[in-house]
């Protein structure tokens, strides 16, 4: 049984790690070598591919833009989703209808909103700004975030609310000092989802930005894979650089989830 478990773990590791390792290996090859021998080790480790990525375009600047958008959209999305979810802890008229309205967006393909989003962002004067993109990401991801955070808050026992009110806390104080501290796991899960979505998104980043000042890393990667020339190893090098923050964020936040899950709510 122990060996079987070990075997499954190794199989899972193989399936998840091989494409990533291949990407890293390929990012050190020449274009010719990549197509001639896609699974071999590089004859010479082409560190120049990484130098080309960093020297041909202002990648650190695009990196900052992506980080800014990911952080701002995540903060906005999680703050709003948490407030909405808290409201749903109370009873009010047409509660289930409101919930359906808020979460219905999950079922609508985002492509359907391209023109309205472009128009609204332009109208707000936020076209070609980082905040414009961040707002759209927060908005697009909000239904799912609400669902994640609300589902978590549903698991919090209502006695905690009652106890807080008996102790004389207001609705707002109950939120900040009682509900918020025990909602971190749900908020963290939503944050990971939002941050990874914002980091990897291409369509709205292309649509809502125009100048070099607001270009994101995902849009910049397309510079290495154009219609007229495709230098895959250099593009892969850019992808490896782009993947690193996602892995770091996931590694850091996933520990928070585990920590949060083990924390007790009712004492």
């Amino acid at each position, binding site marked *: 049984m122990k060996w079987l478990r070990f075997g499954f773990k190794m199989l899972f590791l193989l399936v998840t790690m091989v494409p990533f390792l291949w990407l890293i290996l390929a990012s050190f090859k020449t*274009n*010719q070598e*990549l*197509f*001639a021998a896609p699974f071999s080790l590089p004859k010479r480790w082409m560190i120049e591919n990484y130098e080309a990525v960093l020297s*041909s375009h202002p990648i650190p600047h695009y990196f900052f833009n992506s980080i*800014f958008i990911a952080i*701002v959209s995540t*903060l906005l999305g999680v*703050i709003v989703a948490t407030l909405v979810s808290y409201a749903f802890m109370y009873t009010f008229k047409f509660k289930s209808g409101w919930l359906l309205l808020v979460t219905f967006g999950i079922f609508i393909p985002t492509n359907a909103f*391209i*023109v309205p989003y*472009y*128009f609204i962002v*332009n109208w707000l*004067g*936020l*076209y*070609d*700004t*980082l*905040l*414009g993109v*961040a707002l759209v990401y927060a908005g697009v991801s909000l239904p799912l975030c609400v669902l994640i955070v609300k589902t978590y808050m549903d698991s919090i026992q209502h006695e905690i609310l009652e106890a807080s009110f008996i102790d004389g806390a*207001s609705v*707002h*104080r109950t939120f*900040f000092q009682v509900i918020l501290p025990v909602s971190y796991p749900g908020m963290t899960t939503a944050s990971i989802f939002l941050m990874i979505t914002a980091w990897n998104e*291409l*369509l709205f980043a*292309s*649509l809502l930005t*125009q*100048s070099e*000042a*607001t270009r994101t890393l995902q*849009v910049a990667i*397309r*510079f*290495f*894979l*154009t*219609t*007229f*020339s*495709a230098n*895959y190893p250099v593009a892969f090098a850019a992808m490896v650089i782009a993947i690193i923050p996602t892995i770091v964020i996931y590694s850091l936040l996933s520990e928070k989830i585990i920590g949060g899950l083990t924390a007790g709510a009712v004492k």
Partner: protein
Amino acid sequence: MKRKWFKEKAAFVLIFILIVAGCGSGNSKETVTGGGNSAASKQRIELSMLSSWSTDTERGRALQAVVEKFNQENEDNITVKLDINADWPSLQQKVKTMIAAGQTPDLFNYNFNPNDLSRQESGELLDFNPYMDEEWKSRFTEQDLQAMTVDGQLTSIPFEKAGILFYYNKELFTQAGIESFPATWDEFFQACEQLKAAGITPISLMTSDDAWHTTNLFTYLAASITGTSVFEPGQSLDTPEVTQAAQYLKQLFEYTTPDALGGNYSVSSNNFLIGNTAMIIDGPWLIGSISEEMIPSIGIAASPTFGDGKVQPGFTVTDAHTPWSAAKQTSQEKEEAVVQFLKFMTSEESSKTFTIDGRILLSMRLELNEDEVSEAGPILGQYIKTNSEAPESIVNIVRILKPAATSKLPSLLEGLILDKFTPEEFAKELEAANQ
């Protein structure tokens, strides 16, 4: 006490939002450059130009050089601001969105498709007819101007119209005992057989995305059988000639690499570029990817024919027209600035820059002397010569199909190769998808 505490929290949230808004708008521009309808400054006109040609490519560097030269010559009154989005499909989606939102970019390029006139029919594009004086008109052929005219309005200026030619590896041909590029399709099949017998894969093909290299071959075959009118709008694709072309195409898949099935442009072109295959059918942009060592081995040739006079020897398949369009302007000065820039872009001098430095084959008339042709390099020189001698041409089928048929084409081609469809069924399915 409670109220004070809440006010503190609210103030914190407000300050945070203001900081975020401040950071975001720090990168914003003073004006929305896409707004063709926004009023232009009288002193200085800024034109926003959207393109996918990044400076990582030769054509991108050529475009930047032309724009910079124009800006220098007009530094007191006009500035063209070049904004690059390297992903062509995303850029096209963006342009269509901007048009739908009434914020048409001042200048943009796109692939002209007679079956998708949504841009022209939006009513948002500038009509160049009032500005088309004799001098500017003489830069183009009447046929190209006619092709860009929709409902009597010339809303696109012809620019790129690349001939697609046969690249062949002379070294591999010699190894297989072939002395020259085949002039007829019978000789072509014979050459493929000889190459295969010598252990060389004859041709690079692909089925993924727009199946570009394969559809080039298919268009050459169909035109050779029927003539260059074979895919004219309104013509049925379910014909014995198209069926026959599909039959030949299926045969030619016996002479390609195993990764052609499901392979994309990069897979197919790299097979040729690393010497895995002896031939490929592509545009002049491939030249920039050919390695220095390989350049002496590469030959350029026009298509074979069946020798029955249906097409003239030397005919070419071309890529779609990639013209430039502009937003309708409310300001007369801005409209004139757009025209002034496009006249500069299509001038003899700029055309030379685009052709020699950018390796772009243009719709504009261009006379290159011997020195200029040799300056273009051995392959591009040959390419320009072969392309300019073409007596007639036809646009690649994938550029004239309706979007539904274009998206279905890869699966139809794979079905044909894998015997899921007969050539007759292939033609029938293609016609049905194109309705």
